[in-house]
């Protein structure tokens, strides 16, 4: 299962990079979304996949009986998801404002600042 998911993550990375390399700012944003998903999945996959054993302690027990999924990467990813969402929200509004101010969504035409 890890192999399969690793391949999926690879494809996600490839897709995100391809989209980020487009000239349209909307595609750029799509690329960013895929990228953050890719990174989150990567953490999830490389820190080990466990089927059907969420890290929850049953109501009547003081500790988990058997093996459970590693909770730490889950916590990290949760943090990462929320951070990525914040950043994305910012980026989305940014491109919208940029489009308003610059009047195009072609990134290649946004080079006043460094040429």
């Amino acid at each position, binding site marked *: 299962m890890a192999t399969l998911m690793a391949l999926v993550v690879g494809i996600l990375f490839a897709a995100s990079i391809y989209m980020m390399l487009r000239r349209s700012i909307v595609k750029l944003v799509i690329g960013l979304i895929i990228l953050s998903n890719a990174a989150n999945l990567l953490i999830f996959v490389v820190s080990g996949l466990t*089927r*059907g*054993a*969420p890290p*929850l302690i049953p109501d009547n027990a003081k500790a988990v009986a058997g093996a459970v999924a590693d909770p730490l990467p889950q916590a990290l990813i949760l943090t990462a998801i929320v951070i990525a969402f914040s950043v994305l929200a910012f980026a989305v509004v940014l491109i919208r404002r940029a489009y308003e101010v610059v009047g195009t969504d072609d990134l290649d035409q946004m080079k006043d600042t460094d040429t």
Partner: protein
Amino acid sequence: MLSIVIDVVYFMLSLALLFAFIRLTRGPTLPDRVVALELIASVIVGYVGVHAIDTGVSSFLDVAIVIALTGFLAAIGFGRFVQRGGVRND
């Protein structure tokens, strides 16, 4: 028996997801795609239910509650977009 049925159900739901996705890609209009997206959300509810039985962990049901309560928001957002004059075929 249950485990076989669960596998069959997983299979049917996977198939349902893929069919729904096909409609999403085909469109032709945005509302068509949104309908497909909605269906995917519903299928996930079913999937979560089966998964809860499969694993014996009822906590997974909370995922389904969240989908049931908030999943339709995307549709409302899209609907709002369409009605505000967003390009229909785009």
